[in-house]
């Protein structure tokens, strides 16, 4: 008898107990947050999936998604409010993308993401991004170049495939970076781009949005973002993409190399005077995928020398981009997006404790050295450039 009472208690005295049929929930695939500049209220735009339109047997002719906007004083309130306006209960666990408008980002994001983290309805690994030069909700609606029938899925795939000229970060990582001392974050940026073929516009993942604490301070362009990725190792997705170098043999011809394995680390140094400096070591493996030049090289030594020169060229380019982004972070943002502070704390906790009060000023002037080593590990099984024959 005791045993059965115990089992009954186990079953009945538990926490969450809620059953919802699949036909009662509205699956949210994407979410955009704007702010009404007049009233200061949040506008949350959610993209709900419409499963009936995806049915394999008798699909309904509607679009497979539904975009709904609701407004309210706080994010938590807006998330609940959506339930009054549509016939399904919002279900956020399958949300893939959160887009924040520039305005909301500049005002600070802690109040926004607190509702996500506390409510646990939105998962931590949802892609987190800022909309540049456009309202966030527009990005959920524009006709983009996509194969997926649901725009949010297409957006999510942009992040999955993100290359080295864009940053990608998920909600949980962003949240950790914001709460971590000595580290500021860079968030992915979505822009609208016009094109000259149907449907004449598209969404593009490009560059990064630099934050100081939880407030947006500025944008990195693609070159700066590359530099940022080389320093940090690429964040969530590995650094990938193609880099174009000038062909050293002929003018106006180019060599294309693919980025392979990247190793990067930051070493803090504190000398006797208490002077802090950082060394950034980047080791990038490359694979040659394109060679436009037609000048033929004579022997193996020439080929090796040529590859060495190319490596030098790549090193120069990488170093320049790294320096550019550090300059911008130091001078323009005073925002430690490379987590120099965190690394200092890990190696020299005592120094960090002295510095942490006014770290952003220290960071703005901290000296650094960059060591880049690029190595072409493969030339695609083909030796040197080829010369067309008659």
């Amino acid at each position, binding site marked *: 008898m005791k045993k059965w009472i115990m*089992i009954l208690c*186990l*079953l009945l005295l*538990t926490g969450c*107990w*809620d*059953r*919802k*049929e*699949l*036909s009662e*929930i509205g*699956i949210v*695939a994407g979410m955009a947050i704007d702010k009404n500049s007049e009233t200061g209220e949040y506008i949350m735009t959610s993209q709900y*999936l419409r*499963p*009936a*339109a*995806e*049915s*394999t*047997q008798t*699909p309904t002719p509607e679009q497979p998604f539904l975009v709904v906007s609701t407004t309210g004083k706080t994010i938590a309130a807006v998330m609940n409010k959506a339930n009054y306006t549509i016939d399904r209960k919002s*279900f956020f*666990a*399958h949300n*893939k993308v959160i887009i924040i408008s520039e305005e909301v980002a500049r005002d600070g994001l802690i109040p926004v993401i607190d509702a996500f983290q506390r409510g646990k309805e939105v*998962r931590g690994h949802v892609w987190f991004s800022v909309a540049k030069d456009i309202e966030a909700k527009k990005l959920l609606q524009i006709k983009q170049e996509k194969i997926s029938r649901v725009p949010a*899925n297409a957006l999510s795939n942009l992040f999955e495939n993100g290359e080295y000229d864009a940053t990608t970060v998920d909600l949980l990582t962003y949240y950790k970076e914001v709460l971590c001392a000595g580290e500021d974050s860079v968030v992915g940026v979505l822009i609208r781009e016009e094109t000259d073929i149907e449907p004449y516009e598209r969404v593009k993942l490009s560059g990064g949005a630099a934050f100081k604490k939880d407030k947006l301070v500025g944008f990195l362009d693609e070159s700066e973002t590359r530099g940022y990725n080389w320093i940090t190792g690429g964040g969530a997705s590995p650094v990938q993409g193609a880099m174009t170098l000038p062909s050293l043999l002929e003018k106006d011809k180019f060599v294309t190399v693919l980025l392979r394995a990247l190793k990067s680390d930051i070493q803090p140094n504190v000398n006797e005077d208490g002077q802090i400096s950082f060394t950034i070591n980047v080791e990038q493996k490359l694979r040659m995928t394109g060679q436009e030049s037609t000048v033929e090289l004579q022997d193996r030594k020439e080929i090796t020398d040529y590859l060495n020169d190319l490596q030098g060229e790549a090193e120069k380019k990488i170093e320049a981009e790294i320096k550019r982004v550090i300059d911008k972070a130091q001078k323009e943002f005073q925002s430690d997006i490379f987590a120099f502070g965190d690394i200092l704390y890990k190696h020299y906790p005592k120094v960090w404790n002295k510095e942490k009060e006014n770290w952003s000023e220290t960071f703005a002037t901290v000296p650094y050295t960059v060591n880049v080593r690029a190595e072409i590990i493969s030339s695609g099984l083909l030796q040197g450039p080829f010369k067309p024959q008659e």
Partner: protein
Amino acid sequence: MVKRLKLKQKKAISSSKQNKNKQQSPPEPIAKDLDKNVQRIKQNFKKSADVSYRDYQVYNGKTPINVFMCFIDGLVKEDSINSFAIKPLMEPDFLNKVEPLPNDDFFKEVKDRIISTSSMKEANTIDDVVNGVLSGATAIFIDGYASAFLIKSIGFESRNVQEPQTEASVRGPREGFNEVLNVNSSLIRRKIKNKNLIFEDMEIGKETKTVVRIGYIEGIANTKVVEEVKQRLKRIDTDSILESGYIEQFIEDHPYSIFPTIGNSEKPDKVAAKIVEGRIAIFCDGTPFVLTVPHVFIEALQVPEDYYSRPYLASLLRMFRVLALFLTIGTPAIFVSVATFHHEMVPALLLTTMAAAQEKVPFPTFLEALLMTIVFELLREAGVRLPRPVGSAISIVGALVIGEAAVTAGLVSAPMVIVVALTAITGFVVTALNDAIILMRFILLFMAGAFGFYGVLIATFIMLAHLSSLRSFGTPYLTPIAPVILSEWKDAIIRMPLWLLHSRPQTITWKKSERQGTKNKPQRPKGRG
């Protein structure tokens, strides 16, 4: 020892008889007067139509002596009575030539030289004669002789040794047990030609007097377990044993458990293998299903073919059987949990597909799953019970109605059909645990409908706790997994090569028992590089 046991047994049986007879009358000895015996016999059989009587005469010298014979039609081979019991007795030449003998010598002559059957015994009481006749013997009374001859003449129509229907195999012997006890034990004897293989008989069932035979190998089987089996069989006090299932239910360790703690099989090779491993087989007259004890859980996942095919495939198939076991118990429950409680655990694309299918279904997922599972069980039951030709019609109708029409009509979602189909198919993989599986499936389904994965987990834990509390004739049910016996894992979820399986299952025999030497690994002949 065996003899002593047999004696004990006989004593037990006869003492129980005596007890019964005390209320009526003491056992009645056979009289010297033939007429009196005939009367008593006829009284005993009342007017049963299948009992045949025959009067004839033999000559002692020139003196005719009346002989009375009695047997049951259809139970005896009449040919053999004619040629071995009637003809020699009636042969005039033989007895006429000899001088008339004194009575006692004459009977001895008849017994020792004239009745020419291989098996014959003398009975001294009317009750013994009646019992003998009922089990197929022919009784012969001779006037003036105070006992009767019981000639073994049993012979009746029976099914041939055929391929068993319940346990088909691709590779391995195709023979199966039939309904005749002697045939069944002889099938085992043919496989195990060993004087230590011992069969012991006992009679169970006050009305049916069914012969139950236990078989084991002395020296391998644990004597305590053998003793325990005999004790439990003796304890049975019922009127009829019509199938070995009766015995199973009277002697099992855990009558309230949904898991079977006694195994059964129709295949002689399987039973022989179990006997050689130290198990005890219980044969029951009238059924091809032979019980084996002790029976542990893992046996449900093993089939004889595992040992006949090479170890790689056998191991893989065993793992699939484990998978099938989990799938057939858990699939509907997991589907219901996921579809009503844990939407976040399914990949988004799959969830969309599931939601799309669920959109127009009028029932809650739980009810849908429950109905479909019940319908499947009904179909299965109908398929089993109906005559063969109708059975296939049922399966066609069932497949059409459930698979096609129900989905088209929007009553059932297509994923649910897949779930139930998967459950059904995997259910046929582990047939030995069928009753437990069906019950567990419904229990888990209800828990899933009410509490989601949490309920499924609770139910699974309770089931595991229950399983590990079970024992079968002293052997823990989850051996070798729950008391961890690493050496027996060689033949549990995977089957290692036969030459690596040195010792017999320790928990079956309860002692160290070597099956084979340690140098059995096939090797290249020496001298070749």
